[in-house]
């Protein structure tokens, strides 16, 4: 039923956006969240994240590595650029490392139950002819401080299809109640 100014349910239809797998972090946290043996049946992947780190800080960057052929690549250089706002100024920067930072979340000294969030797109992940490009919208607000970021990253070690993704903190664990949901988008 639709009332003036009120939207009600109208049911749903099938889409080309499919849930692949979800990791909900349990008690004690975890050192890493892995997606392995990712189906190659999609054109793009999207990962929707609600996350908090156990690092002894107010916030922490969650790092991502990827792999091909069933092996996580821990040595190749990945690039990342960001545009970030902290509530006072907008800044831009970049980093290159053996990982890419696409997720900014709250950490152990932030108010309890406040998590950071991110939506990451991995474009043409199943292509065997292209280097891989990622992008994310990520942020947290702690009622007194916050960050929101637009980020991009790349994996250029080879053009093989990605089938492995890892998320982890450089300083601590991923906290309990964090969730990582992997979706596939068909062309």
């Amino acid at each position, binding site marked *: 039923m639709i009332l003036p100014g009120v939207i009600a349910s*109208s049911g749903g239809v099938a*889409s080309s956006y499919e849930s692949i797998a*979800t990791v909900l972090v349990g008690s004690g946290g975890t050192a890493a969240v892995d997606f392995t043996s990712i189906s190659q049946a999609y054109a793009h992947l999207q990962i929707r994240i*609600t996350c908090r780190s156990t690092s002894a800080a107010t916030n922490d960057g969650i790092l991502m590595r990827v792999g091909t052929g069933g092996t996580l690549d821990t040595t190749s250089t990945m690039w990342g650029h960001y545009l970030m706002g902290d*509530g006072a100024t907008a800044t831009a920067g970049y980093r290159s490392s053996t990982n890419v930072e696409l997720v900014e979340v709250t950490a152990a000294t932030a108010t309890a139950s406040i998590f950071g969030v991110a939506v990451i797109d991995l474009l043409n992940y199943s292509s065997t002819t292209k280097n891989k490009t990622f992008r994310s919208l990520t*942020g947290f607000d702690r009622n007194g401080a916050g960050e929101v970021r637009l980020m991009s990253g790349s994996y250029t070690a080879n053009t093989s299809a990605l089938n492995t993704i890892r998320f982890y903190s450089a300083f601590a664990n991923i906290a309990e109640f964090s969730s990582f949901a992997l979706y596939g988008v068909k062309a």
Partner: protein
Amino acid sequence: MAAGATYTPISSYTAPSSQTSITLNSFTGYTDLEIVLSCNAASTAYHVFFQCNGDTGTTYSYTILGGDGTTAGSTRASSQTSGRLTYYAAVRSGSPTIIRMKVMNYANSTTYKTILSRSDRASDGTEAIVNLWRGASTAAITSIVLQPSGANFDTGTTVNVFGITAA
């Protein structure tokens, strides 16, 4: 491995006349919501805010990153009585302002709710906003009221709600 299709259209609304608010209150059974607004204004510009579960307390805060065609900037506010969806991309007459809300993990009962959004108006600006709602508890979001400030949602404003279910 895949759990099947999701990103389900839940509802679609087109304002038949000027509206002081638009209420979304029927979206149970999903993990995340994607809410897409195309906001029209008559003659007076306005900004778009929201409240969850009818909470009018000072439980909202937000951080904004945006640009107006000349400079990039960032601003924020704490302990507000509503969340904010536009700052650089005000709704004005002419081209609509497009807002896309990502209401993350809205149904869980263990975390405060954080909402990402992007707002764009080609002739004004573009922005990304992160909103936090700290209700009386970590309760699930069961309703969202979209509120213009400064004028009404004009005729033709549309709101489309999609639900995403994790495996």
